[in-house]
């Protein structure tokens, strides 16, 4: 079984981001960039499927400027067999990322597409669902457990009410939630080896992607700051403070 995994280059999750004073975006110069944490989980799942003898080939794909090749190299170091870079000046919005990935999927014919449930920069949580729609495939979003059978997958999904179980026919798009697995770290020799591996470039023109208009960014602002609070020193004082605010009878 061939598994396609998409990886996005995002600001590292530990970075405290700063909004540019002119409101045009967030500061990215000199900021540490990493693979989106949910994509790491999706890739780890693919690697485990390969180790279990269920997946035969893992293809990692990323869309964006030249720099995304860094994350593709990480994917190769971790265990992806091939890496595909779809070059664009900037990462597209989900509506167009899904369109490009759909064309790539039509070319590559994977039986499973694993993706992160959301990217931690735009927090959209859309691309897997849109990709599944464009391909007419089943989707199982927010997966915390995947059991593969011959032509189907049983997926436990993290929903507001608890855990929902779906049975989907393959091929399918599955998006990874946090608790699907704990991703491994790449080993140094594998990182060295991945440096020499080829990365295929497939342009949007090669794929014949038809992009649609995206939302226009007007402004980025820092969130309103909460008023500085006060410290109390005892439970009695805490209860009194809550009463004062009318929060306790």
């Amino acid at each position, binding site marked *: 079984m061939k598994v396609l995994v998409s990886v996005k280059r995002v600001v590292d*999750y530990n970075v405290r981001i700063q*909004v540019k004073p002119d409101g045009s975006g967030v500061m990215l110069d000199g900021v540490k960039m990493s693979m989106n944490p949910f994509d790491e989980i999706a890739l780890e799942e693919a690697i485990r499927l390969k180790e279990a003898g269920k997946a035969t080939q893992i293809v990692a794909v990323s869309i964006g400027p030249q720099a995304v090749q860094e994350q593709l190299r990480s994917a190769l170091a971790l265990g992806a067999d091939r890496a595909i870079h779809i070059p664009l000046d900037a990462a597209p919005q989900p*509506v167009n990322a*899904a369109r490009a990935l759909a064309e790539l999927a039509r070319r590559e014919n994977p039986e499973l597409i694993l993706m992160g*449930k*959301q990217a*931690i920069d*735009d*927090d*959209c*949580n*859309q*691309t897997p669902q*849109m*990709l*599944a*729609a464009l391909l007419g495939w*089943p*989707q*199982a*979003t927010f997966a*915390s457990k995947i059991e593969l059978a011959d032509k189907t997958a*049983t997926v436990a999904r*993290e*929903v*507001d*009410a*608890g*855990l*929902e*179980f*779906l*049975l*989907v026919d393959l091929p*399918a798009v599955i998006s990874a939630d*946090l*608790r699907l697995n704990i991703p491994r770290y790449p080993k140094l020799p594998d990182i060295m080896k991945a440096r020499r591996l080829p990365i295929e470039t497939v342009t949007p023109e090669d794929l014949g992607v038809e992009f*649609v*208009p*995206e939302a*226009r*960014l*007007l*402004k*980025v*602002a820092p*969130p309103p700051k*909460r008023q500085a*609070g*006060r*410290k109390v020193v005892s439970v*009695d004082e*805490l*209860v009194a*403070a*809550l009463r004062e*605010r009318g*929060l*306790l*009878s």
Partner: protein
Amino acid sequence: MSKVLVIAEHDGETLNLSTSRTVACALALGPEAVDVAVFAEAENKPAEAAARLNGVTRVLLVEHAANRNPVAAVLAPQVSALAKDYTHVLAPATTFGKDVLPRAAALLGVPQVSDIMRVLGRNVFERPIYAGNALETIETPPGIVVATVRTASFKAVAETGSAPVEKISLDFDCPTHTRFLRVEGSSGGRPDLQSARVVVSGGRGLASKENFDLIYALADRLGAAVGASRAAVDAGFVPNDLQVGQTGKIIAPELYLAFGISGAIQHLAGIKDAGTIVAVNKDPDAPIFEVADIGLVGDLFEVLPALADALPKDKS
């Protein structure tokens, strides 16, 4: 003028509060009509409840056998078929709305806006990015606006309306490639985390699953819902549907009490809109104190029982 379609969230029995809050966002568009679509197997209570929401023009009850425990692949083609008569299609940014709406948007060939916090124009919206550490204002391109609504940012509408309920049957290609099996829930009879007035939350500082009983005890005394940080969920102290934060639930209770939670940015993303935040932590430098309205540096194992004792006993 705007004509808005709101996708109702329900479990066949109860209309989820998120629907009412989504209607509130729809009304912020100053629309000429707000219709609520209830997808169900047959006529049901949620459709009647939707009809009582103030500001709703019509309830469209879309009956189909596949709408019992519907999956996104079944709902999305129905939503996109209905959408063509509207300028806006809104759903709550719950796991339900997040699953369905992008699929419907893709079928319509338009982008989707996630987590509207504020309506600034008929196609200008404010939404959080980077775990709520920045807010972006975006303008959607011409065409149908498809968006999910951050329910914590909108107050539920009153329930004194009486909109007509119209039954509709849609002609759509109903896929069979996805089967619903079951849901395993874990609310434990306490208020729903996303609609509770008071939430008591525990983190890694609780140190064990058993110690979480102290959180449950205080929550029950306050009639509160129970939440948790990712650390507490990962450690197995509580089920994951109690997780509050960027990847869990975004909540806006009147009172949020955090015990043994350090306040990682991903957690703070989930509570930024809370009315009053109380933090109890033994580390005076914990980042949670930077956002807490009332902070108490102390041992939660002493504070939790003492606080429960200090509260009026007649609350259930």
